């Protein structure tokens, strides 16, 4: 994976970078900013220059028909695309004022700041405790055993799982139900105290009750974290997110307050998609 930077984006970036956090027109802090993001898988272009801001302490949902590049954009935000050999990313992605794709940036640190929850719950084949302790261990976040236990307990608590599992922290995480597993994965992500949490269709493998639980959780987590979620469910986007971005064929068609997007979209394609005419 190579980062290609043209001279004009470089100068654009220099003007953008300043000590103060960037703010939107309404005065909201912008946690992450994507500028002219283009992604290629080999010769195939999956994103055609996306400009998208992620606002702090809000839930932003990415919607759009299958294959339009939602996951691709999401994976750019914490460089998970690095694990795909043929993937190339152009353009700028800023976390606060740091360029995520700066060759000098430490991916390990970036991913500690921008955590990820995947579509299918993927607990490690370890105990529930070890699953949550994994991140703090590799980042050396805990001072001693007691501290680690605290971190694990509070992460599980914030993920709304503690009550259900507190008596069986030693049992394998894979033995939990699907919804519990997904909340375990959220707890695992929270345990490294990230600033942003990316969720790629986190509820698509869950039943309605577990989904409701995770949605509730997202609303609580919003107080402390910035959340970006990919979803195929309009209702879910409407329920949990403050802002919504609609993608189509690798382009960002429009982005705005969730309410506006769903009641009064600017673009015909958005209108068609949310009314179920395609996708």
């Amino acid at each position, binding site marked *: 994976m190579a980062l290609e930077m043209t001279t004009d984006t470089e100068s654009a970036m220099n003007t953008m970078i300043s000590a103060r956090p960037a703010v939107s027109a309404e005065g909201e802090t912008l946690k992450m900013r994507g500028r002219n993001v283009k992604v290629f898988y080999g010769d195939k272009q999956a994103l055609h220059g996306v400009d998208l801001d992620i606002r702090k302490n809000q839930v932003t949902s990415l919607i759009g028909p299958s294959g339009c590049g939602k996951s691709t954009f999401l994976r750019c935000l*914490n460089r*998970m695309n690095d*694990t795909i*050999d043929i993937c190339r990313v152009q353009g700028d992605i800023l976390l606060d004022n740091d360029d995520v794709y700066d060759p000098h940036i430490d*991916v*390990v*640190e*970036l*991913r*500690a700041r921008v*955590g*990820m*929850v*995947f579509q*299918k719950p*993927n*607990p*490690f*084949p*370890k105990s529930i405790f070890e699953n949550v302790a*994994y*991140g703090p261990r*590799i*980042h050396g976040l805990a001072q001693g055993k007691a501290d680690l236990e605290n971190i694990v307990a509070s992460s599980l608590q914030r993920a709304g799982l503690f009550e259900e599992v507190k008596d069986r922290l030693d049992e*394998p995480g*894979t033995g939990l139900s699907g919804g519990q597993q997904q909340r375990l*994965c959220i707890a*695992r*992500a929270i345990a*490294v105290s990230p600033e942003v949490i990316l969720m790629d269709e986190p509820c698509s493998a869950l039943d309605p009750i577990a989904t409701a639980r995770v949605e509730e959780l997202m609303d609580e987590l919003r107080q402390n974290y910035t959340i970006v979620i990919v979803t195929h469910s309009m209702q879910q986007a409407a329920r949990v997110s403050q802002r919504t971005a609609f993608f189509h064929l690798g382009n960002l068609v429009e982005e705005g307050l969730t309410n506006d997007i769903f009641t009064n979209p600017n673009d015909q394609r958005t209108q068609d998609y949310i009314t179920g005419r395609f996708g």
Partner: protein
Amino acid sequence: MFWTYAALLLLVFVTANVYGRFRAMQVAGNQLSALHSRPGYYGGYLAILAALPAFTLLIAWEIVEPRLLDTMVISAKAEIVAGLSKAELQAFLRDARAIAFGGIVAFSDAGKEQAAEVFSSLGQTSLFLKTTLILALVAGGMWYGNRTIAPAMRARHFVERTVMALLILCSAVAIFTTIGIVLSLVFESLMFFRQIPVLDFVLGTHWSPQSAFEGAGAEQGEANTEIFGAIPLLVGTMLITAIAILVAAPVGLLSAIYLSDYASTPVRAIAKPVLEILAGIPTVVYGFFAALTVAPFIRGWGESLGLSVSSESALAAGLVMGIMIIPFVSSLSDDVINAVPQSLRDGSAGLGATRSETIRRVVLPAALPGIVSALILAISRAIGETMIVVMAAGLAANMTVNPLEAVTTVTVQIVTLLVGDQEFDSAKTLAAFALGLLLFCITLALNIFALRVVKKYREQYD
């Protein structure tokens, strides 16, 4: 003769198949939807009914007939064969058969001529009977099948069940062969243990069966029970196996990790087959590589350090054996490491783990059961290996854990016990069976252990 009949039955099978299809379409009035199964199954139904019973009979006949004929000839010509020893009787029957059915006759006499007459008349009756029965079975099967083919007939179920029965039969053959081999091992070993007490064998520390008939009791033809101690062989086997695993486990495992998680696709595409070629080299080649290259090298190296190294050493054999089993470890571990879902790797990377942390903390633990079974398979392979040890480690049953000395292993001793002329029931020959049983028990125990490990940790990811 057998093959002619088999070919004819094959022809019957094919014809019945084609006809069955045709017949099914006919009874269904050419309406596919009227049939319970697709027409091919009716073909199979008819073919099985027509050919399978006849074929079973053919095989049964082939097995039973010679024995039956022999018994009948012997009882018909009891006065001629009376007083012949077992071997003579067999020669007699062989010659009589050859005269009757054609073949090479050692020498003939009147008695054999007479027996041959009986043979040929019985043979003709048998042939006639066999042909009639087979024809009847084919015709009956055809008739019955033809009559029963009807749209509602569940031909598919019949064919599937027959196929399943055949599959069961085949696995039964494999299983019973194994059981037979084990039983014969046990049986011969029991004969051995009748002469040599089990404890002397399993716990004895002295092995020199070549001198079996010397020392105390030699005059009575009794075996000296003190010289069949298997411990030195076990120690030698374990020493060499341990050295081999010390070489193969790290090298194999690390190269598997490299291949599965670090190597780019083209490198992997070349490196993996090349590594697997190692497994294709005949062990004899490894053997002389060990004996002619590695052993002298180790010896020279040891002497330059002032150590005494025998020209055949456990170290040389173990090292080369280790190289031999690298592909077992690497190839199997590579497969299990690859089988760890990508989602686990992503999950770990998403938390900020580096590639090596992910491998160490997530991938390897998840793949552990598979890796353990790969290692144990490699160990069983090393324990059973003979050639390299014969050539590089020597035949001397030293009881030592010094890798620089010559040692010997269970397999090598089995070979030396059975090479050359042997009396089949001497303790020396029977010792080979006991050693075989011992080896079998060890590998069996290892396999069971491996299975348990795998079962215990399996299903931890999905």
